[in-house]
């Protein structure tokens, strides 16, 4: 134990020291102080107004103004993206403007934009109308001409009556949208117009029904798309001409036209007039087009100037909103002249915060300084680990399970190495490892560029974990070298194989085996093992044993960490009645197994470890026979077994009873409970006097809890050790899969003499390697490594019921998406 005392303090293992601090800010410097704190980003303020709804808080108006401004900015963003402008933000032109000015500017811009939009819309509408008119003129004119020219005898009657009428009408064709009334009742008249293509069918049906079929509908596609004024999209339209007779029918048809949003335009029947009209319309169209273009150019210019600033403005508004949201969390003191805030900050950051607050006082010319002092805290502080871009991803992996309790041992420190290593045990192939390494290096080298842009969800994930991938790749290469696998092909990197065939032809290598003729292969698995008869039994045995060794050591590490935690929190009860029996139990069974494995490896003994372990329980006193590995093994086994059996009640019973004893001692004779220590409470700010209440001690609950824990540990020791065998299983699966792809795809295809087959085989092999081995297998090995950490390792000591330190920081605000 002395050894542990002398160890240097493990700073990285525990979260930062946190202090609960109170700041009292005079109103005049409040805004500046909070925005400085936001720049610093090391203080997490508590919400002291939780009971107030958002619109009852002090700075609600400012928050609303910020909301309004961000709405305007969103509106600009909409308009900009609609206009298709991509202006790069120019941070160089960033001049300091304050919020009021920005607000004024934004509303100016908005008003300007709205006006331009309205003008534009008007023009667009006129333009659309003219365009539609032109289309109707062209198409409907065509109908009329066609009707005139190809009047077949059967239609003569109709046509005659129609044209007889038309002659005397043609005078006022231009003035009215509908063919004007004529005295002749049998007269056939027509309405021409334009309608959306999608509505055309129902329109025709409706006309048919309304006039009881007494009409003739003629239509043709407009050919040109017309902009829909509402959505701004281009829509297909159809030009129609309806021939009908009678006044009532006209009214009905007009109503239907109106209901369907069809616009009617008059078309003169005479060719010459049509031509004239068309000319006029075209002329006006081109004029309008020029006006529209000018308007658009103007608008785009305005939008471009907004676009160049939009990014800065958005950030600024976000910051302001953040500041006011934070100010809303502060309390007014009694005099209404100061704002009082409480919050957590890392202890190391206190001088920085003080300095920043002093700056704020000076810059805002305040007479009164900002008071900043510590408070006593009764609740658990937030957990804050300082991470860098390398350790961040590992910390995230741990946090995904649960944020560490304040000052709890942080498994992320160990995960940095153990996680990629366990991954690599399952993913051992240095070819695949090189591929991963390449990928992660690309991500890391382009870090600056990738970090500043938005990535897809998958890329985001890969980018976030780039250093994890890097380490995983490096360890994969290492493990791959040990397994001697390169896309499942063995290499003679470290010298010659120790084995050779019996004969020179090597025909019986798979049946008769090989003979050893020189020193063992210096590093990793001998390449000659590949494909030999004993390859699988050998690899399985070594990987299985290795998994057990790794598992037992990692679980021991977990339990040892629980010792350090207990020691740190001064809970000697936990050391004596939890840590010690757990250590003994695990090591007397599985630690012993690990020992046997190591001895067997060192001595090259033929002993059957299954047999040893099983008969250690079934028949502890029986003779070990040929399975004896060392002298005194039987006695040692009996001793270990006894220790394991004793360890179970040791971890189950004493702790709850001692807890009960402590509890009764503490409250002995106190039948009335504790009086509130009134002097102390009065001294403190009533707001901060949030003490934790003493909970009633419920023995049965504690006991059941302890029982569950003990049972879980005892059963867990077995199942967790077995669970580490997944290292072997996945590694086996990986190597078998890559062997299959290599032999059954690549070598098979290579056997043919055709180039096409070879290329196809190569392609399929490449795809299989990339998608199945590199992506799916990476994912599955990753998940299994994750599980081993979360359940088997962290389950031994980690509570993970803390909460994260979330400082008020502009940097975090800017990253946040809407």
């Amino acid at each position, binding site marked *: 134990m002395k050894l542990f005392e002398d160890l240097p303090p493990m700073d990285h293992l525990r979260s930062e020291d946190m202090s609960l601090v109170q700041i009292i800010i005079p109103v005049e410097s409040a805004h500046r102080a909070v925005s400085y704190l936001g720049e610093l980003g090391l203080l997490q303020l508590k919400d002291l107004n939780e009971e107030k709804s*958002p*619109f009852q808080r002090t700075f*609600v108006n400012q928050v609303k103004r910020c*909301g309004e401004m961000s*709405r305007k900015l969103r509106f600009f963003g909409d308009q900009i993206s609609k206009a298709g402008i991509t202006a790069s933000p120019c941070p160089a032109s960033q001049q300091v403007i304050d919020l009021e000015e920005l607000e004024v500017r934004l509303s100016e811009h908005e008003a300007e934009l709205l006006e331009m939009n309205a003008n534009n819309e008007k023009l667009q509408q006129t333009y659309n109308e003219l365009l539609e008119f032109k289309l109707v003129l062209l198409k409907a004119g065509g109908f009329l001409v066609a009707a005139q020219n190809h009047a077949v005898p059967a239609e003569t009657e109709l046509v005659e009556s129609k044209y007889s009428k038309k002659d005397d009408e043609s005078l006022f064709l231009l003035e009215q949208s509908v063919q004007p009334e004529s005295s002749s009742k049998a007269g056939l008249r027509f309405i021409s117009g334009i309608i959306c293509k999608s509505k055309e069918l*129902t329109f025709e049906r*409706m006309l048919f029904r*309304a006039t009881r079929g007494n009409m003739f509908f003629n239509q043709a596609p407009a050919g040109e798309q017309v902009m829909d004024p509402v959505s701004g999209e281009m829509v297909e339209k159809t030009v129609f001409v309806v021939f009908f007779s009678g006044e009532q029918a006209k009214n009905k048809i007009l109503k239907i036209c*109106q*209901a369907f949003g069809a616009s009617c335009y008059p078309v003169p029947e005479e060719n010459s007039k049509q031509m004239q009209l068309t000319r006029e319309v075209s002329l006006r169209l081109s004029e309008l087009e020029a006006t529209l273009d000018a308007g658009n150019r103007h608008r785009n210019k305005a939008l471009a100037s907004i676009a160049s600033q939009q990014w800065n403005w958005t950030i600024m508004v976000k910051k302001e909103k953040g500041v006011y949201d934070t100010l809303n969390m502060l309390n007014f003191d009694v005099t209404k002249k100061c704002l009082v805030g409480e919050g957590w900050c890392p202890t190391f950051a206190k001088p920085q915060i003080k300095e920043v607050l002093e700056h704020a006082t000076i810059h805002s010319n305040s007479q009164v300084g900002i008071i900043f002092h510590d408070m006593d805290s009764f609740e658990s502080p937030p957990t804050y680990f300082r991470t860098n871009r390398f350790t961040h991803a590992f910390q995230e992996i741990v946090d995904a399970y649960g944020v560490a309790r304040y000052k709890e041992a942080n498994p992320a420190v160990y995960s940095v190495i153990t996680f990629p290593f366990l991954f690599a045990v399952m993913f051992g192939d240095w070819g695949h490892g090189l591929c991963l390494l390449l990928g992660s290096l690309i991500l890391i080298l382009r870090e600056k560029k990738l970090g500043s842009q938005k990535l897809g969800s998958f890329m985001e994930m890969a980018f976030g974990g780039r250093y994890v991938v890097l380490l995983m790749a490096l360890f994969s290469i290492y493990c791959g070298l040990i397994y001697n696998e390169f896309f499942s092909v063995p290499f003679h990197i470290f010298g010659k194989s120790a084995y050779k065939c019996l004969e020179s032809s090597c025909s019986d290598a798979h049946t008769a085996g090989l003979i050893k003729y020189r020193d063992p292969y210096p590093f990793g698995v001998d390449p000659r093992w590949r494909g030999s008869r004993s390859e699988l039994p050998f690899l399985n045995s070594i990987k299985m044993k290795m998994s057990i060794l790794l598992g037992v050591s990692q679980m021991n590490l977990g339990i040892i960490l629980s010792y350090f935690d207990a020691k740190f929190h001064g809970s000697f009860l936990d050391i004596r009645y939890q840590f010690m029996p757990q250590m003994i139990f695990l090591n007397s069974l599985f630690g012993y197994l690990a020992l046997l494995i190591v001895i067997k490896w060192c001595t090259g003994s033929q002993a059957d470890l299954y047999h040893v372990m099983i008969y250690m329980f079934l028949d502890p006193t029986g003779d070990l026979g040929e399975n004896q590995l060392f002298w005194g093994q039987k006695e040692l086994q009996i001793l270990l077994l006894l220790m394991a059996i004793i360890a179970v009640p040791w971890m189950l019973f004493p702790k709850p009873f001692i807890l009960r004893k402590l509890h009764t001692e503490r409250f002995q004779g106190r039948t009335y409970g504790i009086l509130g220590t009134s002097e102390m409470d009065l001294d403190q700010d009533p707001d901060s006097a949030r003490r934790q209440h003493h909970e009633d001690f419920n023995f049965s609950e504690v006991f059941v809890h302890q029982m569950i824990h003990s049972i879980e540990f005892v059963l867990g020791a077995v199942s967790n050790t077995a669970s580490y065998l997944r290292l072997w299983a996945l590694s086996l699966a990986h190597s078998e899969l890559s062997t299959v792809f290599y032999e059954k795809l690549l070598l098979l295809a290579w056997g043919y003499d055709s180039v096409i087959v070879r290329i196809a085989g190569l392609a399929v092999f490449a795809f299989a390697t990339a998608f199945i081995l590199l992506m799916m297998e990476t994912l599955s090995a990753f998940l299994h490594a994750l599980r081993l950490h979360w359940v088997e390792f962290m389950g031994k000591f980690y509570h993970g019921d803390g909460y994260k330190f979330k400082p008020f920081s502009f940097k975090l605000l800017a990253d946040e998406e809407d």
Partner: protein
Amino acid sequence: MYGFEALTFNIHGGYLEAIVRGHRSGLLNAADYNNLCQCETLDDIKMHLSATEYGPYLQNEPSPLHTTTIVEKCTHKLVDEYKHMLCQATEPLSTFLEYITYGYMIDNVVLIVTGTLHERDVQELLEKCHPLGMFDSIATLAVAQNMRELYRLVLVDTPLAPYFSECITSEDLDDMNIEIMRNTLYKAYLEDFYNFCQKLGGATAEIMSDLLAFEADRRAVNITINSIGTELTRDDRRKLYSNFGLLYPYGHEELAVCEDIDQVRAAMEKYPPYQSIFAKISYGESQMLDKAFYEEEVKRLCLAFEQQFHYAVFFAYMRLREQEIRNLMWISECVAQNQKSRIHDSVVFIF
């Protein structure tokens, strides 16, 4: 299949039921209403709603808000949710969902026809229509002069066509006729919906028959109260009652002859479920009846969520959302007109 829905329901309905239950948990709760009732301006309401599911729909509205904007946006959200569910639904759930909209369709038809009668602008009327009850040729309704034309021109294409069989007359449209048409249509619709639910069977039939019976009975009472003192004859009145529900048939006999509100009350108090509603309001009063009915309805609708594997949750959700929008409208109106003391007159808390 009664009792065995649990085996197969989730194959088609599970996803949507999960969706609708998720939507339901987004309904405003009592705390939200309390906060809303304390609002001073419409902006406060917007601010509060921005923290709820309505947030994205209101956030881009420029600041001088109007009650209509709030209601419109909230309805928009409901419509979006409905459309999403309809797109995902398979038979018979999709038909069930479509049935829910027919009620809105009837209201829209009546709105347009009445509006045209009073020579309002069609576009203006269209804006007032409930978006769930829109159909293709709704604008053409303005063309029709009488019921027959109405049917022949427009409604024959809509799902409402079968309900028209009882009210095809050549009479010209007037307010009274339209009101009768609305009730006849609604009666036919409710009966059809009821039969459809019975055909579906299982828990859907059980719960929906309860909800629809309540709806039918409420309409019967409303028809009775509204027709007191009009020229509607007893037989005509009798014809407008739906042929199912708790009051059918004997209650209808009694309601048909009622001459004032107290007689209605006497008739209704014979039915235990309605006794409690009438117990809340004093004699001779009909103003608060609506609210009492709404409260009872909300209670029943909430109960529909207690059971799983049935379609009534969709109906209940749509109705609850509608009630919530009514509440929001009332609160906003009260806030806008500085009548905050009257807020509680008509707000029905959902939870």
